[in-house]
């Protein structure tokens, strides 16, 4: 059953298109990964799903949540969804917590506002949540301020905040950038486990293919505001159809087995074009190893290339 349906979502700043006609669906309880570089539009897409697109942005297209159009909602209409049915986990665990409020107060904020429950009841639920996200000594942590917690603990507190009202959808925008490799893996496994246990849909936004692989079932690949490729994570990672995806996968750092000579990490030549000078046609054609003059003429349509897989390329790799 479809929980979120996005159709032709376009976000423009002045004349520059930061996101171009993005369409995708998300099933209830589905784990979706969105991968892309800085400036690919992935964060903008997430903010639009939250009703939090920047004021300077012109947003068009349609977003439905649980069968109802939400992109046309006024601010107060969004407020009844935000935190209650759609929640967000922010990037930076230190700055996403109010330094002057106790952890317990921040976790219970959404519950008390949306459900009108008593402080005692909210505290009890916050305690259970902290236990669920694996916070050590949750009773004591509830009374602490953010600066008294470690980075990993703050990230767990943020996850608990997002889960406070048992939402149907959680958006996690680079939730692990501030954590070291071990904490990252723990936090990702925790997110996946919680989403599974609660039947909650999750959109994980990341530039890190390893994070997407660890958490998501299906993934979207964004580049320069365009959806380049979409499909099951395992299939895309083993047989990418779009040259951009292929380049991303080649550029992943891998552990070097002993005895294998050191080699430079493959890269995609060139750099991501700025919002002001996005190329015509396929956004990737200038950097694409298979790019031909025809690629600059028009935007390649997103076509089905295999069951459940779509790619926007005139010359896709065989899958």
């Amino acid at each position: 059953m479809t929980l979120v349906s996005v159709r032709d979502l376009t976000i423009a700043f002045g004349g520059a298109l930061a996101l171009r006609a993005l369409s995708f669906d998300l099933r209830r309880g589905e784990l979706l990964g969105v991968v892309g570089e800085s400036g690919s539009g992935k964060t903008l897409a997430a903010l639009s799903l939250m009703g939090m697109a920047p004021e300077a942005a012109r947003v068009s297209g349609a977003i439905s949540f649980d069968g109802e159009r939400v992109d046309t909602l006024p601010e107060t209409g969004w407020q009844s969804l935000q935190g209650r049915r759609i929640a967000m986990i922010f990037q930076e665990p230190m700055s996403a917590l109010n330094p002057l409020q106790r952890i317990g107060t921040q976790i219970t904020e959404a519950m008390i506002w949306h459900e009108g429950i008593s402080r005692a009841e909210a505290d009890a639920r916050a305690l259970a949540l902290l236990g669920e996200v694996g916070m050590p000594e949750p009773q004591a942590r509830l009374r602490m301020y953010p600066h008294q917690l470690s980075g990993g603990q703050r990230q767990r507190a943020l996850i608990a905040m997002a889960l406070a009202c048992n939402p149907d959808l959680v958006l996690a925008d680079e939730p692990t950038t501030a954590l070291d490799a071990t904490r990252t893996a723990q936090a990702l496994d925790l997110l996946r486990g919680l989403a599974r246990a609660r039947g909650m849909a999750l959109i994980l936004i990341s530039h890190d293919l390893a994070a997407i692989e660890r958490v998501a079932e299906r993934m979207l690949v964004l580049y320069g505001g365009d959806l380049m490729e979409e499909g099951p994570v395992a299939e895309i990672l083993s047989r990418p159809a779009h040259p951009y995806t292929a380049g991303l996968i080649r550029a992943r750092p891998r552990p070097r087995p002993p005895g294998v000579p050191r080699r430079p990490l493959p890269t995609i030549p060139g750099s991501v074009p700025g919002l002001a000078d996005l190329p015509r046609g396929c956004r990737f054609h200038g950097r694409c190893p298979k790019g031909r003059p025809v690629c600059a003429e028009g935007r390649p349509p997103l076509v089905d290339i295999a069951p459940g897989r779509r790619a926007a390329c005139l010359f896709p790799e065989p899958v």
Partner: protein
Amino acid sequence: MRWNAVVGGALVGLVAGVAALSLVWTPHDPAGIDVSRRFLPASPAHWLGTDQVGRDVASMLMAGAQSSIAVALLSVGLGASLGTALGLLAAARGGWVEEAVMRLSDLAFAFPALLFAIMLAAVFGPSLTNAVLAIAFIMVPIFARVSRASANAVWAREFVQAAIAAGRSRLGITIDHVLPNIAAVLMVQATIEFAVAILAEAALSYLGLGVQPPTPSWGRMLSEAQTLLYLAPQLAIWPGLCIMVAVLGFNLMGDGLRDATDPRLRGVGA
């Protein structure tokens, strides 16, 4: 602890303590006129002597501290509340509301406060209330600007974005997240504005637009002493010194508080 906060706090404590003491005790009646005891020099009976109508100068100064503190407290309280509310509104709503509030602040800034006080006095008669209103009028745009600038900085922080994502209203976010995070800045500003208010009260009283006789006030003592400068200069020196001590005290305390709350000045990364 910073030296300026300590010295400033001590001076402020002295002025406030004397004002409080004068509520229950002064060496003589500050309004007690006795023409037979004019221009007495300092003595154990009259610590700082008497003035041109025989009032005890020390008692008048003590009671005058009351007026200064009361006017400063009321006007800064009123001006800060109103100004902060406007600044928070501007930051929360943005757009034309913010523009309107800030342009109105500019307008109020451009309007000479003394002129406003004279206008109030001309229409409603000179009184303590009108002095308070006139000084509060100077404070409103100052606090509107300070609170808007700090609130805008808080609105840009991620935990406010998180509160929006949790479905909180702008009013709720302003009260629960923004105001507590700018409280320190406002407190520092209020302390500094206290000094401005004390000076303004003295100026208004000097012009006869503030507290009315027989209630003593430093500003009026100065103006009454002005014609007697060659005869009895000490009558001008004492209230002048009191004003200076009070203003210096609040300024030093404000500086000290700012140093203590501003991490950049403490050498600790924000």
